[in-house]
């Protein structure tokens, strides 16, 4: 893919050439940082314009729970409540499991086992969210129905669990990245001092990996806040339910609710048009959602300054009692945490393989569709690959630049502000990206339905993931690397080019893959800007009025309304194809990464 251009493979080995001045580094990182700001401004500007187009009763929007556009009642409190409950629940479940699993993967399992497992986890992050939603319907709802003794099981709790399952792979993958960046000599030193494995991890490894593991949680949170389709299928989408007492609060968990994202991803933004109080209220909800992401991020990163002080003077003192027992118990817990993602992977694959068996027929891949649900999906595959590739090419330099900027160049405060902005960008619900892209690219610029518009709309999905993983990795550069580089008289630009970039790029690739995997499964923004259901040529011939067909939108349309059983088969087959394509992409890039990672810096 596009990785070669940004990854100078050779590092001066000491004889001869010094790195070139590399002044272009500055413009590159600045462009990256500004891209994040510009993209965010565009979205906020779009929402702001929407809010300005009609009168918004902010007091109602924030403190009233009744939502009924037909009666001009626009209260968002119940949705804010739903969003908060669902996300907190998801984090409470996902974070301990993911961190445990990440530690188990890097510190306990032999590499022979850990590498394929790690690849599998990244693969899980690539499963289109509609599949997670279907699993929620089939597995999570009945469990909730049984436990809480409610009919159906559509509930906030079900949504929280589905989200937890969805963000676990993201959190694990990014945490594993942070942990593998910790040099092995740290572990060796700790072990040679006679620490048990658990003590070694706690006192030596985790302090170094902390910033990366926090970034992982923030990424997970951003995904949880921005995710729509999967939540959509299990949350029940009932408006206006707001508990007033603790008993009702507990009760509300097992009953249908509504979140900000599911409201925005539903049919209402399309029905509301582009002006008027209805649209303004929806835009107001969008701004509230962004404000929530911002608040969560600021709250989440606030602890870092405190963390930094403890790093220099570790508080931790192991007690001498029952060290071995404790070590064994912690190991069991952590390995146990691995079971969940593994079970998930096996279950998901079994489901996809049995339902989507048509994907194993080569002709399904290489013939184009006949009619609504016949034939193969060749054109959808080329369309998806085109969209992913274009998005990747656009997003990689921007995200990498922004990440390096956040990690290296900026002052602590600028870095924090930029990081917050990046995470907010990652939390923008994709339906809003689609609508903004529709108004700006398809309409104002006159592109109509265009594959390029689709790729551009997906860029804000990918850039934050790349930027955050990159920045976290930059922060974990060992001090002595920086010191040696500086003492050799490198300028900052040369330092970035010859030390930071080569050190960081494995993490950047992980970010790119996770981001693209998420982008590959996106449906909502493409429906408006880039895709048609039937009749587009396999490859577009131009930019203006050049639609493509894509797998996610194909799956979406097929799973909506057709009574033809073949439509369902084709939808599952297409989902399987999407997962397989992502799997191939991932394996290639991961193989590449594994070869470089570790061999140079971590010995």
């Amino acid at each position, binding site marked *: 893919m596009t990785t070669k251009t940004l990854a100078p493979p050779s590092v001066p080995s000491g004889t001869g050439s010094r790195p070139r001045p590399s002044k272009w580094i500055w413009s590159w990182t600045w462009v990256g940082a500004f891209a994040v700001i510009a993209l965010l401004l565009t979205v906020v500007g779009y929402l702001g314009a929407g809010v300005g187009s009609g009168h918004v009763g902010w007091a109602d929007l924030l403190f009233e729970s009744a939502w009924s556009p037909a009666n001009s009642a626009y209260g968002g409190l119940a949705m804010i409540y739903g969003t908060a409950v669902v996300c907190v629940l998801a984090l409470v479940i996902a974070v301990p499991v993911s961190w445990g699993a990440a530690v188990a993967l890097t510190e306990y399992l032999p590499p022979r086992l850990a590498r394929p497992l790690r690849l599998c986890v990244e693969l899980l992050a690539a499963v289109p969210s509609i599949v997670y939603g279907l699993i929620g319907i089939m597995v999570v709802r009945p469990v909730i129905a049984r436990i809480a003794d409610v009919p159906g*099981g559509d509930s906030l709790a079900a949504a929280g669990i589905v989200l937890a399952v969805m963000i676990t792979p993201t959190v694990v993958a990014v945490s594993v990245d942070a942990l593998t960046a910790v040099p092995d000599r740290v572990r060796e030193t700790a072990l040679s001092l006679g620490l048990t494995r658990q003590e070694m991890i706690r006192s030596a490894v985790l302090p170094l990996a902390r910033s990366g593991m926090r970034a992982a949680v923030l990424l997970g949170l951003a995904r949880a806040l921005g995710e729509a389709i999967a939540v959509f299928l299990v949350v029940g989408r009932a408006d206006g339910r707001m508990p007033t007492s603790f008993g009702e609060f507990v009760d509300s968990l097992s009953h249908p609710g509504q979140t900000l994202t599911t409201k925005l991803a539903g049919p209402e933004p399309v029905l509301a048009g582009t002006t008027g109080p209805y649209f303004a209220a929806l835009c107001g909800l969008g701004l509230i959602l962004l404000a929530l992401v911002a608040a969560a991020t600021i709250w989440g990163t606030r602890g870092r300054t405190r963390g930094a002080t403890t790093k220099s003077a570790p508080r931790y003192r192991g007690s001498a009692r029952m060290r071995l027992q404790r070590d064994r118990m912690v190991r069991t817990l952590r390995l146990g945490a691995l079971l969940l993602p593994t079970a998930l992977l096996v279950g998901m694959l079994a489901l996809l393989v049995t339902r989507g068996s048509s994907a194993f027929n080569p002709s399904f891949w290489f013939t184009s569709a006949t*009619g*609504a649900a016949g034939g193969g999906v060749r054109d959808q595959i080329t369309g998806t690959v085109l969209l992913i590739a274009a998005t990747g090419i656009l997003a990689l330099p921007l995200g990498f630049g922004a990440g390096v900027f956040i990690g290296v160049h900026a002052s602590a405060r600028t870095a924090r502000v930029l990081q917050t902005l990046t995470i907010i960008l990652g939390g923008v619900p994709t339906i809003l990206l689609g609508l903004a892209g529709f108004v700006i690219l398809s309409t104002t610029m006159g592109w109509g339905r265009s594959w390029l518009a689709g790729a551009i709309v997906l860029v804000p999905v990918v850039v934050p993931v790349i930027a955050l993983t990159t920045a976290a990795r930059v922060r974990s550069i060992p001090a002595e690397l920086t010191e040696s580089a500086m003492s050799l008289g490198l300028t900052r630009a040369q330092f970035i080019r010859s030390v930071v970039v080569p050190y960081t790029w494995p993490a950047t690739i992980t970010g790119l893959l996770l981001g693209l995997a998420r982008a590959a499964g996106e449906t909502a923004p493409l429906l408006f800007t880039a895709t048609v259901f039937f009749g587009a040529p396999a490859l577009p011939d131009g930019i203006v009025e050049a639609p493509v067909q894509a797998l996610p939108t194909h799956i979406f349309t097929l799973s909506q309304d057709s009574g033809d059983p073949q439509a369902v088969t084709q939808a599952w087959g297409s989902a399987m194809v999407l997962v397989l394509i992502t799997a191939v992409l991932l394996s290639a890039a991961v193989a590449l990464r594994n070869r470089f990672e570790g061999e140079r810096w971590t010995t």
Partner: protein
Amino acid sequence: MFTKNHRRACLAATALAALTLAGCADGGGSDALQVSGSTTVAPVAADAAQDLKAKGLDITVATQGGSAGGISQLASGQINIAMSSKPLGKEDKAASPGTKFHSTQIGADAVGVIVTKRVADAGVKNLTAEQVRGLFEGKITNWSEVGGPNLKVFVYDKEPGRGTREVLDKYLYGDGKAPAPPKSGNFAVVGGNLETRNKLESTPGAVAPLSTSFVEGRKGLAAVNLDGIEPSPKNIASGKYPMARPLFFITDGEPDGASKKFIDYTLTAKGQALMTKHGYLTLKEIGK
């Protein structure tokens, strides 16, 4: 609710479409016949387009904005044929007075009030409009109130903008406004037909509006009679059954050229077979 929502939807979609048109005026465009609108009709249109491909017709089918979106895109001249799962309203015509809408009905879809087998077997075979209203407004909370088992009612309503929901609202409230959804914990909103069926089957005591073709051959579900009238093709054809919706292709003026070829094809025996394939009623079945 019906009218207001409806009008908003149309105005909105028109605004969107008008914007698009303004931007695209000089954007060129391909020679293909462009069909867009309802997700309900899209599979049928795509299959028909496939059959006609062999005869050299180039057709693209998209589903942005549903029925209302299709109609407004047609009005603004972006597409050639709008797919619609609802009849043209006065609002549509008022929103674009310059367009001579011409609807061709290609089939129909009967919407049923669907309950689980357990409820139906225990005696709920027929419901009056009053009872259905009570169920969907959250006033009837136990099936025993309408002659069924002692089981809590769980209502799945369709999300706003869905044709199915508009049909139900029209049946229950006529041209009046539907009230806000009930604040009961046993109320949830669903989207597509497959999702609705899936959730009906997995929820004891559930009730939802759903296309009757999606219930045929499912062991766990049954469609109830409304005011004593069974949702049979005969009753739909005669107009006795109150909840049916026609499916349309809409053109600007009489269809001609490629549009005519396309629409004519869907009216032939081969084209009508596609309606059956995707679970809808053919014109013959409804006696037209």
